């Protein structure tokens, strides 16, 4: 679907990559300065490569031989910038409708406003919105320009954790609801795992590896210890009910029940939850009389050493990643197929 071979010099930095992707959501993952945004800009047409060939679903965007360069406005890219870049002098409605006259059968206005819950904000000016609302407007504006491909440049960066979590939920809804191919640039491995079907890992302007996120993250040279501390399992639960008495939300993943503390009643029956990989405890037998409220039976899928740690992939109806030390792997004899119990404190689960 997307083929991009790009050579682009920027100052002392050279981007020299060749990627190809047929999945719906492709992640571009790597540290700052690895060339993720540069590649995105070349695809959008904001930068012209020195050499290269960019084709998206049979539409040539750029070629150096013979020279061809489709103008930005004809590439049909829905670009969501890191800092929203809303048109300050226009209302939210005018911002959303700015790309509307491109025509075609893109997402409908009411649909987009509904998915992003922007109804109450339509008449307001961007500067009257919170950071999270501004991101949602930026996403809606890109969607409504009837894009062939969505380009996200770190759309969650610069927001505080709570706001980023909210925007994450909206973004996932958008990707699921409108099924538009997307490139998602991020330096957060949790985001990439949550959103992307496939991920391209970049470093110093070159492609390190490419593949499904779950496989890629255990490959050598992809993650370091800092990534591991940030590693979160983000997933969607169902059948949520607010338990007033315990100030907690009761919900399910598959047949398993989960208890999550929450000061405010959960509004949606399908909340999005996040658990850090190092907040999950694995037990070989079901622990009894324990303060942690959640004990879930699980099956070990894979055991992978990454850096000085071990990542254990377990199946609890969805796949979770658990970070443990090498001694624990040995003592619990963790290996694929082993039955374990995942123990999580109710307060360690985050409601996004």
């Amino acid at each position, binding site marked *: 679907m997307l083929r991009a071979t790009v050579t682009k010099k920027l100052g002392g930095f050279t981007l020299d990559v060749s990627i190809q992707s047929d999945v719906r959501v492709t992640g571009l993952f790597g540290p700052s300065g690895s060339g993720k945004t540069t590649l995105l800009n070349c695809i959008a047409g904001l930068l012209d490569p020195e050499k290269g060939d960019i084709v998206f679903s049979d539409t040539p965007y750029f070629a150096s031989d013979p020279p061809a360069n489709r103008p930005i406005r004809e590439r049909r890219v829905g670009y969501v910038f890191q800092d929203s870049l809303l048109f300050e002098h226009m209302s939210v409605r005018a911002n959303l409708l700015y790309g509307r006259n491109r025509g075609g059968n893109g997402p409908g206005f009411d649909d987009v406003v509904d998915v992003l819950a922007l109804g109450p904000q339509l008449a307001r000016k961007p500067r009257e919105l919170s950071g999270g609302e501004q991101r949602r407007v930026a996403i809606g504006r890109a969607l409504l320009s009837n894009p062939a491909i969505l380009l996200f440049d770190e759309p969650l960066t610069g927001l505080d954790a*709570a706001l980023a979590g909210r925007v994450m939920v909206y973004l996932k809804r958008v990707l699921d609801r409108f099924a538009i191919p997307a490139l998602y640039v991020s330096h957060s491995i949790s985001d990439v795992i949550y959103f992307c079907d496939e991920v391209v890992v970049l470093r110093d302007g070159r492609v390190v590896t490419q593949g499904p996120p779950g496989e890629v993250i255990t490959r050598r040279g992809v993650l370091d210890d800092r990534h591991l501390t940030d590693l979160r399992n983000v997933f969607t639960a169902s059948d949520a009910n607010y338990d007033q008495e315990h100030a907690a939300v009761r919900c399910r993943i598959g047949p398993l029940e989960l208890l999550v503390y929450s000061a405010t009643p959960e509004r949606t029956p399908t909340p999005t939850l996040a658990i850090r990989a190092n907040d999950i405890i694995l037990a070989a037998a079901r622990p009894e009389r324990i303060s942690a409220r959640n004990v879930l039976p699980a099956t070990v899928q894979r055991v992978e050493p990454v850096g000085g740690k071990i990542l254990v992939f377990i199946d609890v109806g969805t796949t979770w990643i658990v970070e443990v030390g090498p001694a624990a792997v040995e003592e619990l004899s963790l290996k694929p197929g082993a039955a374990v119990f995942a123990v999580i404190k109710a307060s360690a689960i985050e409601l996004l």
Partner: protein
Amino acid sequence: MHQLGLTVLTLILAIAGCESRRGATDRQPELVVFAAASVADALHDIADAFEADKGIRIEISAAASGVLRIQIESGAPCDVFVSADPLHMDRLATAGLILLDTRTDIASNTLVIVTRETQYEAWTSPEPLAESAVGRIAIAHPDYAPAGRYARSALEHHNLWSRVEPRIVFGDNVRLTLQQLLIGGLRCGIVYASDVATTDALDIAYRFDPKSHPPIRYPAAVIRRANVHPAANAFCRFLGTDAARSILRSHGFTDVPRSEDPPEVVERLGPAQSVDDTVMPIASESLFDESLMQALTLSVRVSIVALLFCLPIGVLTGTWLARTRSAWRPIVELAITCPLVIPPVVTGLVVLYLVVRMRLPVAYTWWAAAIASAIVALPLLVRTVRAAVEAMDDRLPLVAATLGASRTRVFLTITLPLSWRGVVGGAVLAWARAAGEFGATIVVAGNTPGKTQTIPLAIYSALHSPDDSAVWPLVAVAVLMSVAAVAISEALVRSKRKQVFRAPRNGH
């Protein structure tokens, strides 16, 4: 850097040394002569002769008679004043600023019609002026410049004034009239014979009879000061000697008729008018109000049309300069900025040259004033717009492009609305600059009341006129306009800053 400082210091010391050496050798201070511009050349020659004879150095300061008269009234260090017009000398006499017994008329002059066209035979009468074939006629301003006053009297005498007036282009002074003839594309004008003596390019077609206009006199007198220069009287007397007269004659001046008190008959048309009315036409209160309103209306018209020229060019160029990476950028930038630093008179000359070359029928009309003002004001608009566009996030136009907007749509819906404060602020500044434009305007458009005389030109002319009471109301209007413009411009810039620093709302 250190070396440069040393060089500069050495230079300063050297100059100071020269200055003090000069002061030491001169036993007597220089005699300072204020001379009307039209006689300055002749006076330089006379001064040389006087210095050779008496060993006294003379310093000549040349300007329009009215300007010199005002300077003398304000106490300028002047020993001898040579005026091109008896009226200014009269005013100084009334104020007791001259030694009356030293006053003498040192020369006279002949009023002539000149043409650039050699095919004209010498005329037997000024009648051909009435033919439209001679085109527009350059004369100095009758209300302010003596040459213009004489020219009007002479034309009225020959019953031509009303017939030629629509085709007349007023220059601020007779020298400017001469320039309009020499380089400004006009072919016919009325000047002094002494002016033509300096150039081969113009032919005298007709000499007016001295009886057709008030007598042309160049009075000289010693200025009354605490310490009258010992040589002042001697110089005044020297101006009446044969040696001085022959120099004046060689510069095209004529001798003052010998008869002691000739009752020069000024024939006038129509009912008798007091002489005062002709020589001081702007003394009347109602006329002054009318001329102020005329100047104000014209200033507003010229500056607004200039702004209308500026706006599209300025906004597009400012935006382009802020965004482009083109190799042409420095060149365009230089061309646009030039009028900001080039003397406006030079800009005026260039515009006049181009306008005449391209045969645009706008020279000496208020259109020319508007074009000149636009060129001079343009850099202010361009720079302000450019700064405003540069202050805008340069990714916003790219966002709009990803949303499918064309360049035009991006410009109209993003760039312009987001930089409108800069555009309006720059426009106000440019308008004020255009309204205050003087140097270029007087060159390309002349100084014709009701046609091209804007407020700055009216102020300048009023300064030259024997009656300068009209100056202050004009000055007040000019100051008010400028202050208002700067205040508006500043207010816009300030409100922009406030908006930038407003904190975003919290929550989600």
